[in-house]
């Protein structure tokens, strides 16, 4: 079924202009009539998102969650952040959707239909944490350019697909392969068809991991349009921009992939630490790989007031890019003392881990509960902002919530 054919069944204008999906009965629309979508742009209905999500940008669409909306162990679509560099594809022809594997380092270019991809290779399902490289950008001083994400550009959903490694083995890869780069169906903001909004990738070592999959299902269902329907590469633990949506082609490169947003300052941080506000030359910027250790208190919502003597049960999730979280602590005295939390093992590698603790407060007053995760290498979250960088990536400072005891 073509994605647009179901549009006819939903309300006429709702998806039309915003999603860029074709307006099915457009010849019947009276002249000068303004489509509903133009009168009321409700992204929450459009993308089935919780009303508590925050729209940072409506062209292109960028929407983030709030900590308390991420309380589920596996994040449902309604709380998943939306990050777009370009415009969502206007027409998805799923029957004729194909994936081509090409590039300097394939023995022979090969194309698979979506059906072929699903039937030929074994399916795997993993919970995988995806976090935007710029999550937390809003806290940098001097401010960094881009969408001002606070804490909500992270989630962990269940993805089902085939391993990229299995597909690459079927294609045949040369020994000189160093990197993969994806190409997708999204549209450049300028609508210039010769430009790609984003085309990123990762080294072959990441491509060949068990958990790097070409996914066609999220949380057991077709991937929602805003999240890459009908095919998306998922590379958990790395900046979510490596997990290309609306996937059409993967190039196996004999150089570091040089697609859009791979070069310059995009998704890069200074190779050596710099002072806040310092100018950094492009060649001094290094590509972000694994994301740093981080955690979120997802319950209770910040602002809880409870009576003296009552204990507070807190819970949340912790993740550490390629690594596992080995220790989880909380503090109610601004880091003077830390108490340990229970932390569960991940459902699988690269899935976020759940923590919980029972917190007591010594007397009435204002408190902040701070959470701090430590990864398998003994590296913890900083309480202050980590090293400043020109584009404001990798802010993994401790999350905190406000609590009042009365």
């Amino acid at each position: 079924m073509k994605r647009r054919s179901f549009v006819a069944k939903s309300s006429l204008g709702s998806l039309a202009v915003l999603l860029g999906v074709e307006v099915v009965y457009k010849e019947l629309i009276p002249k000068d009539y303004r489509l509903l979508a133009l009168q009321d742009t409700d992204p929450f209905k459009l993308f089935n998102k919780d009303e508590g999500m925050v729209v940072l940008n409506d062209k292109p669409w960028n929407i983030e969650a709030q900590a308390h909306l991420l309380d589920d162990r596996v994040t449902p679509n309604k709380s998943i952040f939306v990050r777009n560099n370009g415009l969502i594809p206007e027409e998805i022809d799923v029957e004729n959707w194909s994936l081509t594997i090409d590039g300097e380092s394939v023995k022979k270019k090969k194309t698979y239909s979506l059906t072929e991809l699903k039937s030929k290779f074994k399916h795997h399902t993993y919970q995988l944490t995806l976090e935007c490289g710029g999550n937390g950008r809003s806290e940098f001083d001097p401010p960094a350019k881009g969408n001002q994400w606070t804490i909500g550009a992270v989630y962990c959903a269940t993805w089902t697909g085939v391993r990229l490694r299995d597909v690459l083995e079927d294609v045949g890869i040369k020994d000189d392969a160093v990197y993969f780069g994806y190409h997708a169906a999204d549209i450049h903001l300028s609508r210039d068809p010769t430009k790609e909004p984003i085309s990123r990738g990762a080294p072959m070592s990441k491509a060949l991991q068990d958990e790097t999959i070409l996914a066609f299902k999220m949380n057991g269902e077709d991937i929602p349009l805003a999240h890459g329907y009908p095919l998306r590469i998922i590379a958990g633990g790395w900046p979510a921009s490596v997990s290309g949506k609306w996937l059409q082609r993967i190039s196996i490169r004999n150089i570091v992939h040089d697609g859009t947003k791979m070069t310059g300052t995009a998704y890069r941080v200074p190779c050596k630490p710099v002072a806040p506000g310092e100018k950094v030359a492009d060649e001094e910027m290094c590509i972000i790989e694994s994301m740093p250790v981080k955690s979120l208190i997802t319950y209770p919502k910040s602002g809880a007031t409870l009576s003296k003597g009552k204990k507070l049960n807190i819970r949340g999730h912790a993740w550490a890019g390629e690594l596992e979280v080995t220790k989880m602590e909380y503090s109610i005295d601004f880091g003077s003392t830390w108490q340990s939390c229970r932390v569960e093992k991940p459902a699988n590698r690269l899935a976020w881990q759940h923590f919980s603790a029972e917190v007591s407060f010594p007397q009435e007053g204002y408190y902040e509960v701070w959470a701090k995760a430590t990864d398998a290498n003994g590296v913890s979250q900083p309480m202050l902002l980590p090293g400043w960088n020109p584009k404001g990536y990798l802010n993994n400072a401790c999350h905190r919530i406000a609590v009042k005891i009365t």
Partner: protein
Amino acid sequence: MKKQNNDKLKHGFQNLYQKIILASVVIALGAIVLVYFIVDPNLSIFKSDNPQTEIVTLPIEDDDFNKIENGIHVRTGFIEAPGMTETIQNCTNCHSSKLVIQNRMNDERWKSTIKWMQETQNLWDLGENEDVIINYLVTNYPPKKVGRRAVLTDIDWYQLEE
């Protein structure tokens, strides 16, 4: 007496005149109805399922389009100040005004952002408007000092029931 007769006569004429006008109007209306019946014997114009129903055109509200409320341009959210129009015209074609408003940069960084957009995003040469736009942005959206970790603000206090 003569005056009375004259008045009577005058009144009679006026009466006749009114009747003639009334008759003319009735005849004219009748004629219109007749002509209409000849043209449209099914009276289709009065039927609700008629596809030829005239579309009432709602004017695109020019007022709303450029409406300013409390110093804010309602459609884009921009602060009303010199340079706003140039900013709207040049900076909201490809992306939303929300992307501009949420960023805080000095003139040097705006300049390099504009250059980047021209090199990679098909932004045109802004000419004299470049300085006008940059001036508008640095004046109305200056960087705020937040330090190494800001105080928690906008806390929505609620009673937690467990």
